[in-house]
């Protein structure tokens, strides 16, 4: 296997982008990554998208986007694994470059979620669950995490306030990110008094509906060296699945796919949780960040809430989690999220993260999860 480096990243500001279409958001973003990498031609591309068919009534977007990016006839592959579509696009691109099949590959993700009604968007996100045995009974995406949250509170004594602190921390970080959808701070009180969505989760526990894309250019490390680029290496990758219906899992509070994917990535990179300087994780809901920290081995089982309360995961803390603002503040155009985590990590490892820069960061992890944890992709990166 060849070593693989990220030589360019691109992202535009996320939000409700009424003036932009799926294809325009994507092309603008991909071109930023081209410029950052100093390339205008690629050998192959991967696009993560969860549900362009429901959100904008457009399938076959791999070809559409290759066409509008001016790259026809390069092979283009759309990747779907619910909210981890973007992370999986990176993994597949990594495998293509590592194997020697291609040299310069675009890995990207895009979702245009505001061209349909709110209830259609709720429905589209809900299709990540088991449609016949969860969705059929009226459960929603926030509803599934609400079931996990209540079980976590019961089993470990995690508090409502601790969950709110995840949102407060991520908004504090996102306020320093010029590309975030919500660049403002919130308080524990405002979370606890926000509109109830699915008890005990309120609207400020939930990541928003967003439009956006993210892109990265990867190539063999040797090629990156000859281009005089800062070398950000992908040193570990992992991918795993879990039972799709959360009721059929042995422990509803435990994200087994995250644990398994992380185990693979740690082994490949020869790193332990304490070797990682920055974590970008999948906080689609506040409780998710707590459960993910436990499954990644950053904290003991049941201690995720305490770690947030003690400030361990803040920008200044011992284990910074989601310096970008996470899904909560940066936004969550589902298919793009996994690649946006990589954009943040590359900026942090290059020392280009501005006000939210974490000092002397060398090693970082991205954890990107599909639906209610039925799939997870984990990557570890290192600055040479």
């Amino acid at each position: 296997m060849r070593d693989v480096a990220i030589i360019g990243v691109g992202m535009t500001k996320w939000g409700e982008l009424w003036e932009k279409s799926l294809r325009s958001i994507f092309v603008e973003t991909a071109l930023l990554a081209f410029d950052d990498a100093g390339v205008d031609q690629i050998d192959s591309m991967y696009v993560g998208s969860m549900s362009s068919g429901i959100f904008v009534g457009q399938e076959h977007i791999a070809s559409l986007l290759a066409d509008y990016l001016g790259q026809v006839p390069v092979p283009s592959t759309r990747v779907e694994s619910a909210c981890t579509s973007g992370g999986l696009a990176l993994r597949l691109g990594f495998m293509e470059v590592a194997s020697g099949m291609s040299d310069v590959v675009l890995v990207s993700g895009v979702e245009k979620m505001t061209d349909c009604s709110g209830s259609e968007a709720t429905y589209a996100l809900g299709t990540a669950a088991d449609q016949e045995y969860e969705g059929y009974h009226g459960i929603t995406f926030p509803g599934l995490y609400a079931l996990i949250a209540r079980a976590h509170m019961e089993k470990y004594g995690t508090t409502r306030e601790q969950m709110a602190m995840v949102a407060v921390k991520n908004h504090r970080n996102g306020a320093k990110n010029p590309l975030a959808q919500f660049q403002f701070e919130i308080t524990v009180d405002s979370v606890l008094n926000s509109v109830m969505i699915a008890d005990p989760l309120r609207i400020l526990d939930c990541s928003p509906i967003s439009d956006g894309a993210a892109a990265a250019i990867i190539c063999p490390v040797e090629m990156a060296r000859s281009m005089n680029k800062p070398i950000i290496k992908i040193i570990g990758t992992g991918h795993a699945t879990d039972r799709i219906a959360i009721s059929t899992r042995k422990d509803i509070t435990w994200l087994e796919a995250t644990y398994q994917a992380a185990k693979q990535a740690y082994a490949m990179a020869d790193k332990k949780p304490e070797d990682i300087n920055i974590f970008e994780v999948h906080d689609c809901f506040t409780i998710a960040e707590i459960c993910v920290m436990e499954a990644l081995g950053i904290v003991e089982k049941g201690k995720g809430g305490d770690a947030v309360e003690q400030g361990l995961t803040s920008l200044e803390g011992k284990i910074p989690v989601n310096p970008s603002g996470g899904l909560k503040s940066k936004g969550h155009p589902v298919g793009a999220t996994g690649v946006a985590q990589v954009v943040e990590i590359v900026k942090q490892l290059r020392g280009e993260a501005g006000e939210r820069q974490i000092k002397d960061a060398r090693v970082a992890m991205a954890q990107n999860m599909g639906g209610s944890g039925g799939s997870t992709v984990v990557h570890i990166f290192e600055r040479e």
Partner: protein
Amino acid sequence: MTTPSRYWREIPQRYRLEANKCSKCGIKFFPPRLICPECKNRELEKTKIAETGKIITYTVIRVPPHQFVDQAPYAVGIVELDDGFKLTAQIVDCDFEDLKIGQKVRIEFRKIFDEGESGILCYGYKFVLDE
């Protein structure tokens, strides 16, 4: 949109709670499967899931998908049935304040949602409190 054939083929599970059980490791699956996820055995026996159990977690859905707009707010829970199988469904005919983890419930056959004027009526299992 639920078509009649898509609806009809789930009837054995949804109406009669038909499940299967691994002849080797004894684990129950609902809905029925073709291979045991624990031991990969394919010899599975027909069985049924239990009709009573207790709530292990629950929520109240305030922002529903479009098929459920006229029902919101409504409670959904995961119940551990007396045979150990865990199942997700609505918990109905109760005050939300009476819901708690450990509460005993039983399965009843109810309408789940309907698909408007020309659509079909969709039935299945829901939980009610079992005092």
